[in-house]
């Protein structure tokens, strides 16, 4: 059985993530996979390198699973984030959600990806045609109530 949360240098497999979930009583299964895009902000991207503060990033994923369980007690969630070098079209993050009903599976999955982008200490180093840049997105404060509410709003409405 693979772990429900992981920070890994190995290629991600959404189907394996689904198999990690207990589907007893489940009516809906969703997966979300984020792929490395060939373009970003008009730049032609060659590859990405993701760096993590691994123990805290794993803790961040676990925190997100816990937050989701508070909001959607019937949802089972698995989240894997890849680190290291990735080419175009490779998966950087995979989320699987299982739930008795579809609304909760969609919402929890969406919530998870929004929260990953807010609080998990992972950084994307973009190598584009002509240069490279560290992408800086959100400030990693898990206690920021506004950020959490924003993620919840995107997921639930």
């Amino acid at each position, binding site marked *: 059985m693979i772990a429900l949360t992981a920070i890994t240098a190995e290629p991600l497999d959404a189907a394996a993530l689904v198999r990690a979930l207990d589907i007893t009583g489940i009516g809906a299964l969703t997966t979300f996979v984020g792929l490395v895009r060939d373009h970003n902000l008009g730049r032609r991207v060659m590859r990405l390198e993701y760096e993590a503060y691994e123990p805290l990033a794993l803790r961040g994923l676990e925190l997100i699973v816990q937050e989701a369980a508070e909001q959607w007690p019937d949802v089972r969630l698995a989240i894997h984030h890849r680190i290291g070098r990735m080419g175009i079209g490779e998966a950087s993050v995979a989320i699987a959600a299982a739930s008795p009903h579809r609304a909760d599976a969609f919402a929890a999955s969406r919530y998870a990806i929004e929260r990953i982008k807010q609080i998990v200490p992972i950084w994307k180093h973009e190598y584009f045609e002509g240069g490279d840049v560290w992408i800086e997105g959100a400030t*990693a404060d898990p206690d920021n109530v506004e950020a959490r509410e924003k993620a919840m709003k995107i997921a639930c409405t």
Partner: protein
Amino acid sequence: MHVTIRLFARLRDITGSGELTREAPGGATVGAVWSSLVAEYPELSPYEKSISCAVNADYSRFSATVADGDEIAFLPPVSGG
């Protein structure tokens, strides 16, 4: 006392190292450790407003007091996903 400072992404590029060991006075806060680091590497100062911090691989606050041997991490804005 000694603390280990962990730096990531652009912060690591600025200091040239992902892990530094520094002296800190007893009772120093995470914020004080950051300030000494900025004194050493002025290029870090624009991150003052946007960084988060962790102590011993758990989310923390700049007001937290550090202890001898602690691992203090400074986290620039994240971009996972």
